[in-house]
Every structure is written in structure tokens, then in C-alpha cells.
């Protein structure tokens, strides 16, 4: 009888210890998953920023931005150029404003992940034209 009680106490003690460590393990797993998610998110942001900067500079340097975007694999829909990547989408909105003395070309490069906008880079270039004296 006494041995049986001793064994039951040991079992309960071990069960409590297992429960405690299982709870600790759950908390740790949650932390690891959160750290991994944040690392992946930061990586996606970095890649999107690097590509958006490259695109913005290419648009700045290009004579014909639309031809450049088409060549780079962007597709146009409702005046917005979109390029799908594995983890994010790049969108470019182009705008041109002609004045008496030149042309103001604007572009807005954005990176989106689902509904979330990761970043937006404005890019503008003024192209002066010859004016009659």
C-alpha cells in the first residue's frame, strides 16, 4: 500500500514537471516562429528596397520609361505597371507633365506584400527643352 502511494506521488510529480516543461516549450516555439517570421519579413523588405532602387534609377536614366518597364517584364493595367515577385509585387506609376520650358517626368515605385505597402520610392527628373529667346 505504502509503495503504491509512493509510486503515485512520483507519477504526479513527473506529470507536473512534464506539464511545466511543455508550457515552456510552447513559449519557446512561439518565440522562434516569431523570430523567423520577422527575419523573413526583413529579408523581403531588403530585397524589395534593393530592386525598387534599381528600378527607380533605371527609370531615371531611361529615355522611354514605358519601353524599359515592358522590357523588364512589367505588365500594364489601369495605368499602373506591375511586376510579380515570389514574396512581393512591384508597381510603378508613371506621370509626365509638360511645361513651356521642359518636361517633368515622375515615377512612383512601390513594393506590396498582399495588402501591405512595404515601401514607396518617388523618382522625378526634369528634362529642360530649348526655349526661343
Amino acid at each position: 500500500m505504502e509503495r503504491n502511494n509512493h509510486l503515485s506521488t512520483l507519477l504526479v510529480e513527473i506529470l507536473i514537471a512534464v506539464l511545466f516543461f511543455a508550457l515552456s516549450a510552447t513559449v519557446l516555439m512561439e518565440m522562434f516562429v516569431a523570430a523567423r517570421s520577422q527575419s523573413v519579413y526583413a529579408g523581403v523588405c531588403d530585397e524589395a528596397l534593393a530592386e525598387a532602387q534599381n528600378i527607380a534609377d533605371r527609370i531615371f536614366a531611361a529615355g522611354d520609361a514605358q519601353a524599359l518597364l515592358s522590357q523588364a517584364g512589367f505588365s500594364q493595367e489601369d495605368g499602373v505597371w506591375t511586376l510579380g515577385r515570389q514574396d512581393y509585387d512591384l508597381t510603378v506609376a508613371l506621370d509626365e507633365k509638360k511645361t513651356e520650358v521642359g518636361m517633368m517626368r515622375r515615377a512612383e515605385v512601390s513594393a506590396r506584400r498582399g495588402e501591405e505597402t512595404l515601401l514607396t520610392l518617388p523618382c522625378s527628373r526634369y528634362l529642360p527643352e530649348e526655349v526661343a529667346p
Partner: protein
Amino acid sequence: MIREKRHSISGAFVFLLLGVFAVFSMMLVLLGAQAYRVTVEQTAMHTQQRVFHAYVRNAVRADDGDGEMTIQTIDGIPVLTLAEELDGERYMKAIYCCDGELRELFTAEEYGFNPEEGERICAAQSLDFALGDGLLTATITDADGRPYAIEIARRCDE
């Protein structure tokens, strides 16, 4: 007899429970270590990528205004040089890759280019430059062999 048998089954159950717990604990430690290692590796990789982009972009942006940006190959090393004049003396900033490191050398032009004297920026296997259509393209290969392309519009063209 029956009671003794029940006792031995209870004892075996306790040890089985402990064994299962030990196995799951070990799995958790291994999974955690793996997740931590991958996270640290990815963070290091992205930090490296950010350093490359930020450094090359800012270096070029800061000094490309005078139209003095040239690409040369000196002693077999591709070098981007950004020249400027300070107090009547010509200086150059050279960006290149030497001995597995991205380096920057800022010196007076009269002293010439000595790749070993450059300031170390970060680890990199190679760095190549290409100019065309008003665009400077720098291709950096990091220490693990991953290439990164950085495209910078040349403001000095204007």
C-alpha cells in the same frame, strides 16, 4: 501477484513518459538551434546586402557631380574612381575589391593607386562595374558567392 504486476506496469509507464519527454525535449532543442542558425545566417546575408547597396550608392551619389567618374582596370583589379579637386589638389576615391574585401581608397592622385592601402568595408569576392545608357551597374559577389546588382543613374551625365 496481480498487484505486483500492476506496480511494474505503472513503473514502466513512468519511465516511458520520461523517455517520450526526453525525446521531445531533444527535438525542441534541435529545432530551436536550427531555427536560430537559419535566422542568424539570413540576418547576416541581408545586412551584407544592405551594406553593399548603401555604401556603393552613397559613395557614387556623393561624388558623381563633377563628371569625374571613371572605370579602370589597375593591376587586373576593376576600380571605380571618383575624382575631385580640393584646395587646388586633385584627389580620387577608388572603390574596388581586393583580397576578398570591398575597399575604398581616398588619396591624392599624385600618390597613385595602391590596393593594399584601401580602407576595408566588408567581405566580398569580386566587384565589377559597367557603364552604359547613363547607368552605372556594379555587380558585387559576396563571400558566399551570391551576386548583387546595383544600378545607379549617373547624375554627372547631365
